[in-house]
């Protein structure tokens, strides 16, 4: 028994030495460089695309080594690590998370660093720059962005609509197109639906197709005239197919990135999505003959044409990052046109830069990249709601749409309920998070 204490201490000492040795081995191999920790959410091809940029940066200079790590649940982990005082030097967040992180005091203000490095607003498409900014300051820089358009499966639409030139431009033309495109079997079972507004990217932005969307004069407004018009239009598809038939038809849809995706499996003739979707077509349905068009606009409102849902992958430097200046050098490197275009090309996205090179536009794997680039620059390009309660807006509006589609509430009642909850949530957020 007398020998036990020294034995235990020796074992503990051994473990401590082993741990220390391991960490010192890591640092010894990088002693000549400052190591910048970079957490990113991507896996697979997207991760490899960014890894090539990281490798290029590491090879381009001898002072900084960027250590690239693929991290799941990146927002939660970055926030918790920041709270614990050990954040990564760089984190890859979604653009729609930037405002909330700024409100939580979790991000480094990049305005001055960007100015010194010559990274200026004029070089970027305005909607993307706005996603990176909050309260007039810059907190993120773009990586690969997205703008939304409507993909059309030429084989499933009537011949008179089978080209970008002849495809419907207005909502009423689109309704007519939908009636002619839907296919049912002899028992009335839906075989092909022209469009299902709930499937694809950007459903929550539907009110913007009809006008002002979720915000009016900076205030939350999810039950205005435009909202009601938008959701009534969305509901008209369920009404046309029937609630039970819609449920049954939609329950057969598989995962987004799989051959069972409803557009790829030939269940939907049109599908709203970003430029990257052509990659899924290439992977899962290479034989598909497709084209892309802008979303139709309301009749008699040509000024509302060119609507496009926008989002962006961003790079941020969390508050408390140990190597903020070095991290920003990498961020600036990514912003160089050749690097940005390489990344966006490899991830099959459009570029966030205001001027894309001819080579980028002509050799991009998405044949409709010019359209996506044009839509991103449109005055009707809609970035995510710039409020810290964006997730709650999505949840409440989603629930309202569920309720109206199931016939539990009228569209107006469902939206009124969502509005009243969101106003209360926003007041609480302002009081508790923003300290107002």
């Amino acid at each position: 028994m007398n020998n036990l204490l020294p034995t235990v201490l020796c074992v503990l000492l051994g473990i401590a030495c082993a741990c220390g040795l391991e960490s010192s081995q890591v640092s010894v191999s990088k002693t000549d460089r400052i190591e910048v920790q970079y957490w990113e959410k991507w896996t697979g091809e997207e991760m490899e695309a960014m890894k090539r940029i990281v490798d290029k940066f590491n090879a381009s200079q001898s002072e900084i080594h960027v250590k690239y790590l693929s991290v799941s649940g990146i927002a939660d982990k970055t926030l918790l690590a920041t709270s614990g005082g050990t954040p990564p030097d760089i984190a890859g967040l979604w653009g729609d998370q930037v405002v909330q992180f700024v409100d939580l005091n979790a991000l480094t203000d990049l305005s001055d660093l960007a100015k010194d490095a010559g990274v200026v607003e004029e070089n970027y498409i305005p909607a993307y720059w706005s996603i990176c900014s909050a309260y007039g300051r810059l907190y993120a820089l773009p990586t690969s962005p997205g703008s939304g358009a409507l993909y059309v499966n030429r084989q499933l639409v009537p011949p008179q609509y089978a080209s970008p030139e002849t495809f419907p431009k207005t909502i009423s033309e689109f309704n007519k197109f939908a009636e002619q495109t839907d296919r049912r079997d002899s028992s009335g079972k839906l075989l092909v639906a022209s469009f299902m507004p709930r499937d694809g990217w950007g459903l929550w932005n539907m009110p913007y197709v009809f006008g002002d969307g979720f915000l009016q004069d900076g205030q939350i407004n999810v039950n205005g005239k435009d909202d009601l018009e938008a959701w009534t239009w969305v509901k008209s598809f369920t009404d046309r197919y029937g609630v039970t038939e819609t449920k049954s038809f939609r329950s057969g849809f598989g995962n987004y990135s799989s051959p069972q995706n409803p557009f790829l499996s030939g269940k939907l003739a049109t599908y709203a999505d970003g430029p990257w979707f052509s990659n899924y077509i290439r992977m899962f349905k290479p034989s598909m003959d497709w084209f892309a068009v802008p979303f139709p606009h309301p009749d008699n409102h040509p000024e509302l044409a060119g609507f496009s849902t926008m989002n962006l992958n961003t790079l941020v430097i969390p508050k408390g990052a140990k190597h903020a200046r070095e991290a920003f050098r990498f961020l600036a490197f990514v912003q160089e046109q050749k690097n940005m275009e390489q990344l966006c090309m490899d991830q099959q996205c459009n570029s966030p830069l205001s001027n894309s090179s001819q080579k980028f536009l002509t050799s991009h794997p998405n044949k409709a990249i010019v359209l996506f680039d044009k839509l991103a620059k449109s005055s009707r390009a809609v970035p995510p709601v710039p409020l810290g309660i964006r997730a709650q807006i999505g949840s409440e509006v989603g629930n309202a749409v569920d309720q109206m589609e199931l016939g539990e509430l009228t569209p107006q009642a469902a939206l009124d309920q969502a509005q009243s909850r969101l106003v209360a949530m926003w007041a609480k957020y302002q009081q508790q998070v923003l300290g107002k």
Partner: protein
Amino acid sequence: MRSNRQNVIGLLFASPWILGMGIFLFYPVISSLYFSFTSYSILKPPVWIGLSNYQELMQDEIFLKALSNTLIICAASVPLTTALAICLALLLNTKRKGISLYRTLFYIPSLVPTVALAVLWLWIFNGQYGLLNEGLSKFGIKAVPWLTDPSWAKATLIMISMWGCGNAMVIYLAGLQDVPQSLYEAGELDGASAWQKTKSITLPMISPVIQFNVIMGIIGSLQTFALPFVMFPGGQPARSTYVVAMYLYDNAFLYQRMGYASAMGWVLFLATMILSLVSLRLGDRHVHYGGGA
């Protein structure tokens, strides 16, 4: 002196557990109780707001909806899972050739990770291509929208929860093997049928095990998270599958309302404790301890 030294050595050996429990259990539990009385968004210092979070919870329609969903799922899944586990244990308690293989086969599903299970069930319950609807169609039954209809979605979740009855089944099996054979022999001498023996001997003799499993089942079902989180994002359709643990997660990690989420956790804890105590109290009348005086 020697005794002190032995105490120190004992504590030293126990220290990993003491430290682990202290740092990773007691400290978070006490912290969350404190945070439940604050407004706390992780990176800003918590601000004391007294009972506001609890008052807000009582008026929060979404929380009340989630709580009601959770209680419905608990009320349906615990008795069903208990009945199924007991039936399986009774079947697997017979002396048959290859019974060990059957026991293993019935237990294996409990080992499947929840997320993998959820993805598997999504395919089985798929409205158009699902195995279940395919099977029902053979009997002329129309396709059921298991995942997209609010009432069916909840029922689907309850049915799936029965899949994990393997753990309870093993415990029942152990309990059944402890029932004295002499009681069955006495019953047979009195001319008791199989059902009478089950009702009057087996169930009373394993009642402490049933009580334990019911309490564990209540605790488990009130904490249900992974299955609905993967199968029904956001509690779709129309929040019919939105359970308290999902709302808690959303408040903590999506809405950054850690104080509110902590209050929710404590309300869930209280609900769990009350239901467990009720089960224990009911058990006083119905649970028989064979080894007792």
